[in-house]
């Protein structure tokens, strides 16, 4: 992996100088821009298109201590055929599980085109040794995960040890081999938008294929302004290096209305080129049923009760 910016990580000081040389983010202005885009009115044909687009971008996720093979198999069935009554509903992009359940998901999804993503690197805290993180990544990949969602060491980042964060991402990327690497910044712990921008660039320079907002275990998880800052980062990174990186907001996106706001944000920030599951994902679980409900409402003009949508 090399990018035109690889040399900025040649020492702690060059990396620090680069990240702190990025233009600042004014919180009030970023919040106002995200709020304004949230007022876009997406109706009729555009809403239909947006709902199907959003379904196809969902990373259907279960990350609980109580997850079982049965639970994962049920979720996989839902991922392939979200609405049993309507075959025109597209499958979701991927399912996202813990490493020990990757094999179960891979088996359940064989031949479906739905990818298996696994969290790794001592998700969600990331508080372990690099050896353990790399080994966990390798195990998940060996079990068949096509995508790895790693967490960065927020402690190291906040302590200013950017090179440590960088090296962990590089090592994880190496352990990924052909699997796609999504780097979770856990923006709720980074707190400032300046940090979000710096962490985004750090992850991209280190080789991330995707940058992802949150684990879903920390509040706040994904927010519109944080995603805005990350979309600006991938847009600028493409211009600077020629390499395109995807974005995944995760956690807290529960309604169709929310999902559409994110699509508008992508459309008017990074641009319509990012409106594809290869470049934009929505990490969510309960969102899918709301998308299905709104989709059915648009087709029939009526809302069906919640029992008409499967709980998995």
């Amino acid at each position, binding site marked *: 992996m090399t990018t035109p910016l690889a040399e900025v990580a040649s020492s702690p000081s060059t990396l620090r100088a680069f990240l702190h040389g990025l233009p600042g983010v004014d919180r009030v*202005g970023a919040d106002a821009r995200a709020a304004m885009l949230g007022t876009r009115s997406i109706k009729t044909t555009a809403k239909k298109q947006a709902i199907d*687009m959003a379904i196809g971008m969902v990373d259907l996720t279960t990350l609980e201590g109580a997850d079982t093979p049965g639970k994962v198999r049920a979720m996989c069935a839902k991922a392939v055929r979200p609405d049993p009554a309507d075959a025109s509903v597209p499958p979701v992009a991927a399912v996202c599980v813990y490493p020990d359940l990757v094999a179960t998901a891979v088996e359940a999804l064989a031949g479906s085109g739905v990818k298996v993503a696994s969290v790794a690197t001592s998700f969600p805290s990331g508080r372990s040794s690099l050896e353990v993180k790399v080994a966990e990544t390798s195990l998940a990949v060996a079990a068949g995960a096509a995508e790895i969602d790693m967490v960065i060491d927020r402690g190291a980042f906040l302590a200013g040890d950017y090179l440590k964060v960088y090296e962990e991402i590089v090592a994880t990327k190496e352990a990924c081999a052909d699997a796609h690497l999504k780097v979770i910044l856990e923006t709720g712990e980074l707190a400032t938008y300046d940090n979000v921008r710096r962490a985004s660039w750090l992850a991209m320079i280190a080789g991330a294929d995707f940058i992802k907002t949150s684990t879903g275990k920390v509040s706040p998880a994904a927010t519109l302004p944080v995603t805005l800052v990350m979309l600006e980062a991938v847009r600028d990174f493409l211009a600077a290096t020629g390499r395109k990186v995807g974005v995944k907001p995760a956690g807290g996106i529960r309604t169709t209305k929310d999902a559409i706001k994110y699509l508008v944000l992508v459309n008017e920030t990074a641009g319509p080129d990012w409106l594809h599951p290869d470049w934009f994902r929505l990490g969510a679980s309960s969102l899918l049923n709301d998308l299905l409900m709104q989709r059915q409402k648009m087709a029939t003009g009526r809302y069906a009760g919640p029992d008409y949508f499967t709980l998995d």
Partner: protein
Amino acid sequence: MFEYAPAPESRDIVDIRPSYGLFINGEWVEPQGEERHKTVNPATEEVLAEVAWAGEADVDRAVQAAAKAFPVWSAMPGAERAKYLFRIARIIQERARELAVLETLDNGKPIRESRDVDLPLVAAHFFYYAGWADKLSYAGFGPDPRPLGVAGQVIPWNFPLLMLAWKIAPALACGNTVVLKPAETTPLTALAFAEICRQADLPPGVVNIVTGAGETGAALVNHPGVDKVAFTGSTEVGRLIARSLAGIRKKLTLELGGKAANIVFEDAPLDQAVEGIVNGIFFNQGHVCCAGSRLLVQESVAADLLEALKRRLGTLRLGDPLDKNTDIGAINSAEQLAKIRELSEAGEAEGAERWSPACPIPDRGYWFPPTVFTGVAQSHRIAREEIFGPVLSVLTFRTPAEAVEKANNTPYGLSAGVWTEKGSLMLWMASRLRAGVVWSNTFNRFDPTSPFGGYKESGYGREGGRHGLEAYLAV
């Protein structure tokens, strides 16, 4: 591609009468003259209604009604006046959607702006000054400051209802009565406001609305029964008013033109600066007296900033002002469109480079695409004269001192914006810019608690905040 389907706000909510009279002494009355004027929707050129043209005799009637109401209104305890103002503010909120649609139809501004900016601010101004009505003794103008009498108020077409609120709310709070003349191209929300005064049971004669053009305005400001004149509009007309009122007892405040500098330093938050530039000059089609029409950008970041700005302008959505996704609406009148065209052509002729994003222009109505001029010099007309349209002139500077020098090198002084992440530089700049408002890492933000007004040829007097009371009190 992700195309947004049309999302028009329904215009059924507004009920426009075919013809309007004058609102005098709490009644709708017919003017004495025959002359009437059609007000059109600038986005379609469709005629919306006919309005009366008030002559001198009509203005006289209105001023007399206001004078008759003054003793009652000014003697009323402040807390009682506040009740009326709070009631008006609440009615405005309740009817906000209707008023927003009406404003958009008559003015051409996008519904997103009339709904999310104009109407909330209109209500906020009435709420704010309602709060002052019983606290005037504590405003810093003496123990018992007295009102002036009859205020003659003339307002422009760019923020019709908001400018009405800026004028009427402080005047009434202080105990004055008013005769207000809205602009000839945008009278409808002022006429709707007359109905709101009736709905609020405001005593007759406290608010009078007379429609008409320049002659009506002249008759109002020159009427001997008017004790206070407040004008918002062009510097040219402001100068005429100042001249005709010179040496007589009438108190005068003027809020006139501007040619504001929006100053971007190399350490600015660039993405937000781009938004601020867009909001500074393309908000309300650039029909904003405090618009950031001159972009001063530090040479070291000029190329990057302009590239980002042009990319952003490519996403602006121009078209049907009633569509909830429209960013740029129609130019308010054919006359204003001609003026914008003339100055833009002058910019090209003087050697500046003109650029606009690819953007389809509707067939009917008055439209002008967002336009950026680069390579502009201080000596160009487009860097000196107020265009009052969606046209940005870009200049560069090297040092903070040069930025201040260029920003201040204008006969105007209404507003300025500074973009830097360095607090000390921000304060250094703010203390040297000769402008009534200096925005820090933002632009075109308004709040009823904050005074607004100009230096130099941008006028005198302040509107908004505690300072805004002074114009309506005998101090």
